């Protein structure tokens, strides 16, 4: 398993402390960050607050010439830590709040497709509920486009551990969802 990560499509080498670069990062990473935080259990308002705080921290970090490597991982780590600080929100389990809310997705499909999608999500929600916190976090960060090395930096675990955890989590979901 390689330890190198694919360079971000962001001009990190040319990244300066200017606000325009932060704005570019904001446009690119706001949605993945929001999705990650919401799936962790934060409300939409809480997630947006955390994302804004994370980018303010990024600007403060870069202004005095802070480290410019792996800004994406840095942002996810700041957001992840802030989410953990909001203990009440963080302890809401990932699978629980989504069970009823996925109706909004299937409303746009045909009735047959809606039933199938709803059943698929229901099974997946049950399976997600059986994952450990670390497994869920690894899958969420992986779904956010982070590489194993970046996930390891966010969660403070080794890259090899991330690989093992992701593999274990995917196999669990595949087994529980009968695919």
């Amino acid at each position, binding site marked *: 398993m*390689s330890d190198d990560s694919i360079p971000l499509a962001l001009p990190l080498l040319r990244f300066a402390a200017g606000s325009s670069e932060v704005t570019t990062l904001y446009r690119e990473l706001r949605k993945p960050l929001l999705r990650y935080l919401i799936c962790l259990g934060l409300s939409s308002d809480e997630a947006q607050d955390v994302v804004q705080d994370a980018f303010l921290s990024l600007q403060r970090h870069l202004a005095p010439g802070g480290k410019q490597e792996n800004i994406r991982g840095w942002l996810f780590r700041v957001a992840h830590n802030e989410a953990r600080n909001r203990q009440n929100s963080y302890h809401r389990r990932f699978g629980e709040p989504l069970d009823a809310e996925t109706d909004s997705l299937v409303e746009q499909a045909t009735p047959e497709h809606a039933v199938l999608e709803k059943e698929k999500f229901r099974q997946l929600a049950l399976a997600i509920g059986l994952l450990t916190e670390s497994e869920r976090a690894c899958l969420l960060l992986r779904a956010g486009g982070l590489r194993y090395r970046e996930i390891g930096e966010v969660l403070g675990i080794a890259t090899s551990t991330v690989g093992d955890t992701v593999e274990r989590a995917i196999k669990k979901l595949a087994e529980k969802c009968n695919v």
Partner: protein
Amino acid sequence: MCDFRGRLIAWLDHELSQDEAAAVKRHVEGCRECRSRLQAYEHVSRTFDAYCDAAMAAKTSRRVPRWVPALAGAVVTVTVLLLAFPSARVEPPRPVHAPTAAAIAARVLEPAPAPRKKIHRQHGVAPVQNQAVNWLPAEPAVQIAIPAEAMFPPGAVPEGINFIAELSIGPDGSAERVRLRP
């Protein structure tokens, strides 16, 4: 058990070195079991992504309450009905004013509608009622015929001189307009 089974997900995630990835690719092309597992892992990954998207869409979308369209429809319906049938509008009742003493006096002096007594004028003028046909106002009017000798002392009004007093009475009973016509 296949030796490559533990590296399939890392291969899917492009986390293997070039040599390792090439080896897994060669193996998968000839191993039906690994291909089947790969399909299952890809399916789970896609479903997980869709689930995350659904969670975000559900929490970030501003849903319109169900009663809003119903209320809007009701408002439109009432508006259309009012425009189509303007006479159906309910008007508030007009304020009722207590009649003043002048109004009461005017009503008291009003002659009974029938049988109408013919007034015999000593001045030999034409009856007031005949001339009043030309100046009847559009709104209901009360006609009161008063002989000149009942209002003026004898000889004050030359014989043959006649005049009509138009008196408009407001809603509150007060006299709004007085006009004398020959």
